[in-house]
């Protein structure tokens, strides 16, 4: 999306030590044109930058609480710290980057966009993923990609127990060890198309130094849900 430079360069500062999260979010919702916003003193507060629907550029300087950048649409949100539960949950589009680690359910039910976690993500990362891409530089906890339907989860470290349990059509790429696969999740061949997709995801996540050929691919065995090849176009 083309954004005028003049607007992009003007940075609005919001200090959450003196302003409420509600004030910040209302401002992000009301501003019709993309703006650059720098948020200071988040102090683990919940729902920071949730529900944005404009291509704002938001930088948060510190650790945030639950549901940061939830339902994000178009915006680019960067957290210079760790995240609590449910960062970028139900994201529709845009980019959310976490420079630290993320707690449980990172990217849960996200439909589009890109979530990047440079540290670890804990349990249930990308649970019920519906089309977004999630790239984790570190490891993910147990039950990650549970019932994930579309999109991809890239894990440069290790995956915990029950990876991809009851998986639908999401693609899972793991470079390190997998503590255990969930029901109906199996290892699949890494074909050229997958390597290409993986390289592109790593590049977009600013992890071009990570070698795509070191990953293994996991997907659904398609025995748990009623998959019929003639319905492929609907998935």
């Amino acid at each position, binding site marked *: 999306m083309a954004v005028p430079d003049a607007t992009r360069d003007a940075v609005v500062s919001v200090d959450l030590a003196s302003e409420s999260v509600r004030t910040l979010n209302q401002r992000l919702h009301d501003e019709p044109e993309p703006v650059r916003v720098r948020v200071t003193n988040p*102090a*683990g507060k919940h729902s920071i930058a949730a529900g944005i629907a404009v291509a704002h550029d938001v930088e948060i300087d*510190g650790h945030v*609480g*639950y549901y940061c950048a939830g339902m994000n649409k178009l915006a680019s949100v960067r957290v210079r710290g760790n995240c*609590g539960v449910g960062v970028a949950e139900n994201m529709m589009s845009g980019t959310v980057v976490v420079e630290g*680690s993320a707690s*449980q359910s990172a990217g849960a039910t996200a439909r589009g966009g890109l979530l990047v976690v440079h540290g670890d993500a804990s349990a249930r990362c990308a649970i019920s993923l519906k089309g977004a891409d999630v790239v984790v530089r570190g490891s993910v906890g147990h039950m990650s990609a549970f019932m994930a339907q579309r999109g991809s989860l890239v894990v440069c470290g290790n995956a915990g127990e029950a990876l991809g349990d009851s998986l639908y059509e999401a693609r899972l790429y793991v470079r390190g060890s997998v503590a255990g696969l969930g029901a109906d999740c199996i290892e699949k061949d890494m074909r050229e198309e997958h390597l290409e997709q993986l390289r592109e995801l790593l590049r977009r996540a600013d992890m071009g130094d990570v070698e795509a050929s070191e990953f293994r691919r996991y997907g659904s065995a398609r025995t748990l849900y009623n998959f019929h090849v003639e319905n492929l176009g609907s998935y």
Partner: protein
Amino acid sequence: MCGIAGLYTKSPAVQARLGAHIATMLEQLSFRGPDSAGVAFYRDPAPAGSCKISLNSSAAEPDWTAVGAELADVFADASSPRVRASHATFVVDAEAEQVQAWLAEHHPELRLMSAGSSIEIYKEAGPPEEFVRRFALEEIDGSHALGHTRMATESRVTTEHSHPFSTGLDLCLVHNGSLSNHNRLRRNLRREGIRFQTDNDSEVAAGYLTWRLREGASLEQALEGCLEDLDGFYTFAVGTADGFAVLRDPIACKPAVMAETDEWVAIASEYRAIAVLPGARDATTWEPEPGRVYSWGTTPVA
């Protein structure tokens, strides 16, 4: 939903402000547990051969001085009461078990909050902010403390159903979660001689740890036993005279975050309760892994 906060100090400056810090942490967690609050402080150990007892009374104006005089009369000696809101603490020149037995017989109206050498428990039904003010927590120093804000799911909202629970000397437990096999476990533990004051599920977890420790387990071993014997959801923080330990159940639905600096180690249900501590921004911060025991200051497994 409940809130847990724990702070283990590594410097005299943080020790002096332990109560102020734990108070701020509890205020941050009040929305997770608006119906009751409590704290166990570990501080000012009783001299060898003596014990420290904390009691709660529901009377409007309990005569703590009279209780202290009786204790001094019955046992070799007893301190005058240190009164804090509805609670009072006594140091008695006797074994804790003897004092407990005597109190149960002669003052059944008084609730035993804790017994041991350094533990003091304060807890009350009502909003956490009010609790923090009424008990003037900011005045209290100590080596470590565990606090709790409660949103009741399994049993009634009363002072005795509030956390921390103490079922053994210098031992306490705070819990976020719910246990489903607590009735059977309580029956079994009663048979083993463990005493319970309520029908609360979390008190059973405290009783279970007391039993395992009595049977010779280390705190780490006792906590690992929870993974086998307790059915339900939990993030536990457990205090002993020397430090505290943390355990999350293997499913780990209940949140926890830990942080450490050169001056303190903290556990909280949410990071916002750690963000209020000095130097939190630069602390090493992490989410405790499910099914793994973390401990500070307690004796390591041999």
